């Protein structure tokens, strides 16, 4: 098969001369998926935008060639280029909510592409729009065509985006993090759709992602990008079996999983250097533990290692005589660490720090002039949970299932109702809230929004102590702040800086230090790593783990990332539409899930080991908590739904002493 896209020596510069895409060469064959893998700030998106000549102001194409279907892209005039965009090459973006025009119907937006690139008109356009929507799996397409984007869910919007991209019958589809903003189950649907479409139309796919799981599932060829360069290129199987570049190896090692429980993750120190901050030598040298003098002096050349496999590293160039040796050594290390994994740590008997029974958070829906309450959004609907001292309870679920609301309700940031709520033996209901503030703290999702940009680090850390009268005077507080910064691994002189001077990972460390400042016993972590890169995520997870051992902290870990759950959690609760559907120890829930929803959730996670897990596809989206379906909330999406499921909500069923599931499938035998 011929090559659809052939890029050689692509260079993109900022106006000040910094090279943000530096000498990138790759090619994509027809019907193939090429994945650009890398952390944020590596220049992946800039590469794609360079190819479509859609670079933002201040960024210019500075060299290199790209042939798309035999046409040299950089020689085209702007008018001809417009035919390419959306015609030969189409692009879909990360945030489906922002890529559709909210004041045009879905049909109008697709029709625009058809009229431009397919010379269609009249009734044929509408018919083709419906066909396209059917093709991307949108039910009731004839009606959806006349709807506005706000009437669609996130997964539907991304499908519409794909339909728009397909409308021009492109030979190359560029997908820039197409599933990053979506839930795992929706992500699985969209990835499946992309694969199916590719099989049908034979188009090529340039997939930009930071997720190794997505790469393992989708790609034929992979290019690993770091700081504007492709540092390694190989086929998927080769990459997964034997990553060559130290960066790729580290990326794999930094992934949390059950196999690594009880040992720190191999975090890459530091973070990706800002684009264009070119230094002499290898760009990864500063973070690489295999670097030697040469790496800092001379930039490594592209070295072809095997067929279709190349790497940019001194370890593999002819200059390094002992290359094989070091590869062997690194594999050895890998082996050792595998051997060291001991599975789940033994159960430690400890008392229940937090016990909550039947917690409910209902938001009233008001309507009309008199603001009468016409309904309730049951964001959290009767949740009971216990968190033992020094343990981690993980709360898993898709977005919108009420995880974060539950966390905030526990902190009393949102008013809630509960039958009982006991913390360390004390009743929280009706108690003085302020007195309990110090005992529970929260680490938020977005480290960029959780620190006040106008306050310095010391002031941020001091605030809680002042509010809760911890430490008597300013000098003691300052000493405490120094200790805290040491605990979370920040330099002491960072005290007097503003948050914007820190990277995402460092900011999350500050946020953790802020929570620790008041010596809490329970830390509620609301997706603390979802905004961070894989390598930085590993740093933060290591930190949380060591803090737990050091301070005997309990965590309520709210996340949608099941790999993190496997690594960190002792117990797991799975939430669906405001209710807990399954709970048990991590091993029970993740190894032998009982609830169909948990099973679907687990199977939807892309695995890097590439093992063919039988996929359970969930249809549709989560229903609205304002209007939950009758009976079991999951019944409309469940493959095993029975008549009783649509009639009554299943009661709790104990399958083992610790494992509880709400499902009629398991109810009969044991009750």
């Amino acid at each position, binding site marked *: 098969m011929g090559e659809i896209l052939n890029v050689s020596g692509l260079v993109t510069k900022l106006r000040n001369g910094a090279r943000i895409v530096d000498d990138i060469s790759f090619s994509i064959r027809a019907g193939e998926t090429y994945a650009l893998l890398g952390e944020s700030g590596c220049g992946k998106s800039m590469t794609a935008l360079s190819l479509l000549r859609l670079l933002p102001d201040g960024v210019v194409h500075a060299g290199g060639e790209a042939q798309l279907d035999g046409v040299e892209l950089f020689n085209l005039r702007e008018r001809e280029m417009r035919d390419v965009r959306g015609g030969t090459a189409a692009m879909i973006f990360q945030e489906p909510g922002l890529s559709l025009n909210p004041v045009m119907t879905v049909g109008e937006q697709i029709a625009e592409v058809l009229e431009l690139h397919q010379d269609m008109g009249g009734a044929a356009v509408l018919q083709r729009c419906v066909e396209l929507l059917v093709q991307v799996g949108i039910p009731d397409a004839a009606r959806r065509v006349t709807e506005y984007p706000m009437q669609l869910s996130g997964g539907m919007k991304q499908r519409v985006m794909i339909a728009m991209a397909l409308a021009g019958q492109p030979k190359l589809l560029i997908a820039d993090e197409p599933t990053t903003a979506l839930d795992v189950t929706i992500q699985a649907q969209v990835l499946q759709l992309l694969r199916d479409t590719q099989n049908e139309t034979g188009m090529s796919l340039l997939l930009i992602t930071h997720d190794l799981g997505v790469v393992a599932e989708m790609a034929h060829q992979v290019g690993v990008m770091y700081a504007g360069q492709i540092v390694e290129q190989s086929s998927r199987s080769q990459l997964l079996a034997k990553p060559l570049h130290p960066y790729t190896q580290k990326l794999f090692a930094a992934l949390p999983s059950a196999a690594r429980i009880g040992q720190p993750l191999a975090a890459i120190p530091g973070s990706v250097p800002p684009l264009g901050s070119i230094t002499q030598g290898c760009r990864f040298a500063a973070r690489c533990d295999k670097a030697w003098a040469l790496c800092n002096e001379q930039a490594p050349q592209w070295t072809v290692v095997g067929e279709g496999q190349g790497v940019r590293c001194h370890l593999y160039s002819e200059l390094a005589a002992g290359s094989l040796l070091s590869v062997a050594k690194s594999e050895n290390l890998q082996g050792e660490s595998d051997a060291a994994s001991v599975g789940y740590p033994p159960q430690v008997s400890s008392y229940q720090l937090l016990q909550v029974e039947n917690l409910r958070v209902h938001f009233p829906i008001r309507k009309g002039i008199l603001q009468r309450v016409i309904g309730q959004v049951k964001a959290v609907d009767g949740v009971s949970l216990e968190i033992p001292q020094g343990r981690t309870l993980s709360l898993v679920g898709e977005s919108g299932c009420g995880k974060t609301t539950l966390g905030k309700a526990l902190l009393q940031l949102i008013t809630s109702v509960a039958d009982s709520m006991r913390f360390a033996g004390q009743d929280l209901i009706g108690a003085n809230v302020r007195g309990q*503030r110090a005992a529970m703290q929260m680490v938020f999702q977005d480290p960029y929004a959780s620190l006040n940009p106008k306050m310095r680090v010391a002031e941020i850390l001091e605030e809680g102590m002042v509010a809760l009268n911890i430490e008597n005077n300013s000098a003691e507080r300052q000493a405490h702040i120094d200790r805290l910064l040491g605990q979370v691994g920040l330099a002491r002189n960072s005290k007097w800086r503003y*948050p914007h*001077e820190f990277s995402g990972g460092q900011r999350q460390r500050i946020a953790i230090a802020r929570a620790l400042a008041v010596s809490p016993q329970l830390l509620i972590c609301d997706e603390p790593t979802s905004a961070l890169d894989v390598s930085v995520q590993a740093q933060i997870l290591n930190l949380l783990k060591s803090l737990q051992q050091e301070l005997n902290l309990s965590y309520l870990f709210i996340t949608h990332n099941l790999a993190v759950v496997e690594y960190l959690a002792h117990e797991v609760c799975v939430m669906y539409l405001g209710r807990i559907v399954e709970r048990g120890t991590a091993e029970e829930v993740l190894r032998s899930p009982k609830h169909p929803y948990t099973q679907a959730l687990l199977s939807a996670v892309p695995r890097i080991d590439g093992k063919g897990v039988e996929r359970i596809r969930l249809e549709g989206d989560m229903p609205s908590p304002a209007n939950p379906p009758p009976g079991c909330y999951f019944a409309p999406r469940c493959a095993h739904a029975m008549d009783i499921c649509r009639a009554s909500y299943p009661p709790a069923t104990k399958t083992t002493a610790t494992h509880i599931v709400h499902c009629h499938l398991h109810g009969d035998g044991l009750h």
Partner: protein
Amino acid sequence: MSFMPVMLWSDVLVFLLLAAGIASAWYVRQREHLLLPWRRVAESATAMVSLLVVSLFLLVGLLDTLHYRVALPEKNGGVTVFSPEVLSVFDKLVTTLRTQTEKTYSAPLAVTLYAKESITDAQGRVLRDYPRLRYGGAHLTAAQQQDSDVLWRGLTGVLGGLLVGGLFVGVVGWAKRSLPKRGNGGHSCPPYTWRAVIIATLIIAALIGMTVNLAAAYHVLGTDKVGQDVLYLSLKSIRTGLIIGTVTTLVTLPLALLLGIAAGYLRGWVDDVIQYIYTVLSSIPSVLLIAAAVLMMQVTIDTHPQWFETSASRADLRLVFLCLILGVTSWTGLCRLLRGETLKLRELEYIQAAQSFGVSTLRILTRHIVPNVMHIVLISLVMDFSGLVLAEAVLSYVGVGVDPSMISFGTMINAARLEMGRDPMVWWALASAFGFMLVLVLSANLFADAVRDAFDPRLNCTEVVA
């Protein structure tokens, strides 16, 4: 004593503002991290040049704020009697401009009046010609010498101004170099900032020198209907404009800031009440509201003449009340902006983090919300400044503005209404008011912009922690 200092109400407010400004500058000076953004301001050429211009305006305004009454030569039974006329230090400095009034209109730098009149010459014949001015170009024997005289005086003035300006720059530069560097020593303005400031200083010095030299013999910007020097009127208007711009802010700011962030943060009934208040207030035509309030105040003032010793204090009180009324009616826009911004901020996670520490509401408002809306406050206040100066002009036009005896841009623009309709047109009064206002508002805007940029931490990554 040959004079008695007079403290008018607006003077008190100006001095309070000044004291607050000096106190906060002193406070900031003691704290390195608060000083840092101001250092960045000092590094911006635009900021420093506009600051130079603004401070010249402020200087004129301040000099015009030091009021006094001179003692009359006659004594009344041994008690010194003071003149009923309230003068300011600025008036004293420009006595010639103030006192040398012509009969009526004359063009800038003219030696004759603007309109022909019947003149009886020495022989008793009646001619129709442009009569010579009493003061403008009075030293010239023939009107034909005017061009060369203006050129000569202008040039010498420019040279003199440059000399003084150069001397000033030299002294400041020498003082800066000879003084030992304080603090961490690593900080100094980049050279291009200094170059810009020096050039601006020299240009301004040359302009002032030229004006001063010409004003000694001519009416540089012409005269108005009653023969008053327009340059004098424009300079006197600066104080009125500054007071309307700043004292009104004193009223608007607390109202808008307090109500805006309270509505946005507390929500619930507080939000409802505040929203209803400002929606109602902003749906009443503001001119109507202001006119009603001003007319009521005017009646009160007119029926109580015994409250005021001098006409100046009466005019002044009217100005202060005008500021109050303008302030009470114009806070709604800023309040609405701040409410919206606070609604956005209160959902941010650092606010929730503070709530989970049990930080008090007042502290959250002052530590977290206020600093993060300050950029909006700063920009909209400076933008409002020009709007307020213009509002004063509009109100004076309707007849509810400042006291007719008070000189302001508004009264000047109002007078220009008739002057523009004349044939030939009298353009210089309007042009001067326009020019002075433009320079004042533009430099204030530029300065505020630079300050906002310097205070935005996202634009100022000083050093990235490794």
